[in-house]
């Protein structure tokens, strides 16, 4: 089911942990769906110099979190905001269709962490973002429709 890269990132996840006094923290997903991703970012001069994550979820969830933290390290926050779920999935040599929502979660976790950073710096007007529904519903629906 999973590519070698996914299994590698699952068995040997990069950047697991927390950052104390992180510049941006984003948590997305919810326990009902069975996927929660929490991303911590250390940002200096608008460049992400360190990233860590904690994830409650399946093999794909852990792997996409791990890959997402690798992808954002060293990028400016504008570059990081451009990272799409497809990019995360591609970096892992692809995900089964029914697991694509895990990559959505990774993309949204990055955005949530950066939003948090901006909010802390007073750069954002709104109070809070969405809870980052990972859109598993879409994947499952699509999967079911494909079988018809």
């Amino acid at each position: 089911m999973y590519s070698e890269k996914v299994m590698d990132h699952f068995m040997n996840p990069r950047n697991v942990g927390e950052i104390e006094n992180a510049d941006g923290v984003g948590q997305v997903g919810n326990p009902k769906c069975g996927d929660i991703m929490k991303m911590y970012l250390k940002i200096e001069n608008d460049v992400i110099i360190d990233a860590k994550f904690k994830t409650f979820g399946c093999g794909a969830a852990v792997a996409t979190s791990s890959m997402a933290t690798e992808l954002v390290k060293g990028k400016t926050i504008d570059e990081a905001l451009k990272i799409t779920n497809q990019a995360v999935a591609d970096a892992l040599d692809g995900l089964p269709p029914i697991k694509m929502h895990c990559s959505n979660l990774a993309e949204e976790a990055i955005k949530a962490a950066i939003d948090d950073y901006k909010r802390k710096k007073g750069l954002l007007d709104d109070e809070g973002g969405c809870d980052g529904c990972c859109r598993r519903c879409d994947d499952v629906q699509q999967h079911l429709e494909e079988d018809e």
Partner: protein
Amino acid sequence: MKDTFIYLDHAATTPVKPEVLEAMLPYFTDKFGNASSIYSIGRESKKAIEEARDKVAMALGAQPKEIFFTGSGTEADNWAIKGVAYANRQKGNHIITTAIEHHAVLHTCQYLESDGFEVTYLPVDENGMVSPEQVRNAIKPNTTLITIMFANNEIGTIQPIAEIGKIAKEKGIYFHTDAVQAVGNLHINVDEMNIDLLSLSAHKFYGPKGVGALYIRKGTKTISFLHGGAQERGRRASTENVAGIVGLGKAIEIATQNIDQYNKKLIELRDRTIDEVLKRIPFVRLNGHRHKRLPGNVNFSFEFIEGESLLLMLDMKGIAASSGSACTSGSLDPSHVLLAIGLPHEIAHGSLRLTFGEDNTQEHVDYLLEVLPPIVERLREMSPLYESSLLAGKK
């Protein structure tokens, strides 16, 4: 242990026993006759089928002519439920079942609902048990069928089948039980238990996949779904899967002969696993009734972690098991059984089912107890839920 493979998913399927395979093989080669054919090898196939039928009848305490071979347990469930529902539609259209049935029963009931039937899905207690009183209270003048599983495939809980059968008989309502997990594990007698229909499946008791059986008590009003030839006394057309049926017969014979020793062995493995895991790993819950459960069934929920991750890591260590998480079912929700016993979603997602079988040993349990705690700990360290609940001072 590089080449370790420890199979702990016997509720999903079992290997075919060597004696069973041996009994089946001739029916693929020399004895390949169609059982409906008049000549020698045809008659031989017919004879083999009838011998298997006798064995199934013996195992259930039924008459051979009450046993019908099907392609699976699912087919038997579908036939039993739809067959009785449609045949007795003039009398009534209400069916009683439980919230924890296998999908083969649940989805069949849901299909009947879409066709105008009324279905009551009885809730279960926190151990997954339904009470005879609940069943009695749910019965209405238009109830024509009660369908309640003998033992649950996920959490192992064994239902009070004989008591329910007694009530069904008293009220003159047909009683079907999905005994797919129970056959080969528990003593069954359809007369003593007042069962009118019973489903079983060979691949759960060391027989081949692709064959099952439905017991239908003589006199039960039911309809057929497979029309065509006259096989199975005109009630289930299809050229018989002779080899499969022979395998089913042989497997059920072996299973029922050895049921007590088998039970004893499995219970030892099961109970040691339950006791030790509860001792060694914190924040864990056993799902299903502690004692009224299938002899080889263990089902835990580990808080703060998710089931598929657990299975992948166990797989890396050579252990095969299953889970009730949504990720493993490919759907939106975790197991309906775990939700029905009242587990919150996130706890249901962290479930692990281990089901022991003939080939397991105490050494397997030793190994499991060695590898499981570090895996759980590792996944918890990665989980945002673990740290936040520890911070909240949760015990």
